[in-house]
């Protein structure tokens, strides 16, 4: 425990800027994954344990697209769209078959999908480490901001996540389609009775939620190592985020993801040994005090 270091960091603008940006880097990517998880749970009531595998798929799709085209934009779009498509297929042919069954059935099919994806990746890409490499556009020296440093790519990554998150929020809160989706979360029969194709809507929501994991994977690909099984650790972290933020709440996911980001960024300075403990601790405390999470509504399914 070194609170002195923490205070001296906070009082130096260089350190504060660097660590705040670190918090955002960690937090926003986590938010991308967790928001998809949360969206799917909020609307469909399904906990998509395969979300980490989707993140991995997004990273690998981006990796191969980048190798083929050398265009980061193409890689990014392919990652998002490809995983969105995988999500729709998964929803239609697999997870929709266990709607209304108990959570264990859902867990089981998701586990099956994780196993299949990990092996498919190993078959297609091999067991070794893959790294997409930094696209030329971002090969700049880190930006200097009040004495602190922020790499150009991370500025883009934070910005892109913010824009996507904001777009998602606007789409849900401000559009007609968003209203329907919110209604779907609360009363699917009613939405169905209004003549709206709920089957299609479920698939679409699942696809969008999955695409968010794909986006996260594509954004992570230039800086993170790709290996089979890479989805596991992010799955666990995004679970902590959704539980703290509240299952089904996008804003809650953002707050919780940033909370984790800040805990890790400043924990590394002030209390490095307790960071993990703090994350579990926060989760446990939230569960005990308000099981539905900071911004979640009670769900009885």
């Amino acid at each position, binding site marked *: 425990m070194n609170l002195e270091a923490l205070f001296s960091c906070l009082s130096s603008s260089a350190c504060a800027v660097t660590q705040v940006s670190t918090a955002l880097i960690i937090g926003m990517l986590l938010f991308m994954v967790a928001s998809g998880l949360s969206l799917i749970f909020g609307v469909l009531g399904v906990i998509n344990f395969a979300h980490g595998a989707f993140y991995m798929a997004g990273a690998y799709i981006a990796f191969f697209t980048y190798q083929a085209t050398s265009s980061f934009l193409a890689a990014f779009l392919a990652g998002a769209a490809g995983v969105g498509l995988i999500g729709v297929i998964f929803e239609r042919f697999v997870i929709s*078959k266990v709607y209304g069954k108990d959570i264990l059935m859902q867990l089981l099919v998701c586990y099956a999908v994780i196993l299949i994806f990990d092996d498919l990746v190993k078959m297609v890409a091999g067991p070794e480490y893959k790294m997409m490499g930094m696209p030329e556009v971002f090969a700049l020296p880190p930006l200097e901001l009040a004495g602190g440093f922020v790499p150009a790519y991370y500025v883009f990554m934070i910005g892109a996540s913010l824009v996507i998150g904001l777009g998602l929020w606007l789409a849900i809160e401000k559009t007609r389609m968003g209203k329907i989706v919110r209604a779907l979360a609360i009363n699917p029969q009613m939405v169905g009775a209004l003549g709206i194709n709920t089957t299609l809507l479920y698939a679409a929501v699942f696809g969008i939620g999955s695409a968010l994991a794909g986006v996260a994977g594509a954004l992570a690909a230039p800086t993170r190592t790709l290996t089979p099984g890479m989805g596991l650790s992010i799955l666990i972290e995004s*679970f902590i985020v959704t539980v703290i933020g509240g299952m089904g709440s996008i804003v809650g996911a953002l707050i919780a993801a940033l909370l984790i980001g800040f805990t890790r960024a400043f924990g590394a300075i002030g209390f490095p040994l307790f960071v993990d403990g703090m994350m*579990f601790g926060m989760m446990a405390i939230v569960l005990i005090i308000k099981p539905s999470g900071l911004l979640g509504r009670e769900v009885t399914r």
Partner: protein
Amino acid sequence: MTRSGMLRDAVIAIVALAVLVAIPFVFTKPSLRDFLIYVMAYGLLAMSLNLLVGLTGLVSFGHAAFFVSGAYMFGLLMQSGNVSIPVAMLITVAGTAMLALVIGAICVRLKEIYFSFITLAFQMFIHSIILTWVSLTGGDQGLRGGIPRPPFLGIDLGNSVALYIFCACVFMICIVVMRQIWQSPFGYTLRLIRDNPNRANYLGVDIIRMKLGIFVIAGAMASVAGMLLALFVSGAYPEFGFWTTSGEAIFMIMLGSSQLFIGPIIGAILLRLLEHFVSIYTEYHGLVLGLVILAIVLGLRRGVADFVVEWIERRKAARAPATTEHTACAKEGAL
């Protein structure tokens, strides 16, 4: 009727134990013994978890916490060299029960998916303690140097057949204990909680205490499973307490059946057989296993044992349509 139920279960248990014990003398291949010990350890874990999942409706994602605590407590006690195997086992069961009491006291207050999450959180917490407390646990390397098996009461578990028979006996004792719980008034009260906790509360059932009770029992049983595995591999490893271990136990339950008493054991046998053979023939066993799980879940939509039982019953019903429901229920105690 109740007396006879107990008697019949006892007879079945003795016969089953006799068969289990006879196996190494009939089929002398050591690999069959290994396989069975492995199935017994994991089967016991799944069975103990099913006291929560199938009997009480509590879906714990963190049951391996007690499995790993059993393995480590036992391993550490034996390595200390001060106690004999049976004493170490008793202390471990008691110690794990205490641990389950503390963790359970917090967890059982939460409902449904939130219960699942908090059990998962506690398990991850225990896993990370094992990883960090290197001086005691050996960290990620596990408990090294082997777990000594000093002879007791003339039994030498260094002999692999003796070890197998010992495991079979311990396993069967636990099965009998769980069977008794499953069929006791306590067990039926847990079914009330599983089906409708709110109503159970208005029937004077203290839900929190009942849940805590079964949580502690299930934890203690899981610790026995952990001890069997520790004895078998002569070590204890943090992976025993990783969430994938809990996950496997859940899959065993789902593969077999959560509502038949012996369903989880069937699931354990199926999963282990499947993994055993698939990994012999391909390194892509994850792919095969995943496809098999999907086929079972999407095709059967229930556990394999459930499916078989229903199929048998449909055939029976077709053959003898006159069977009345009453006689059916008289047999209820059978499983």
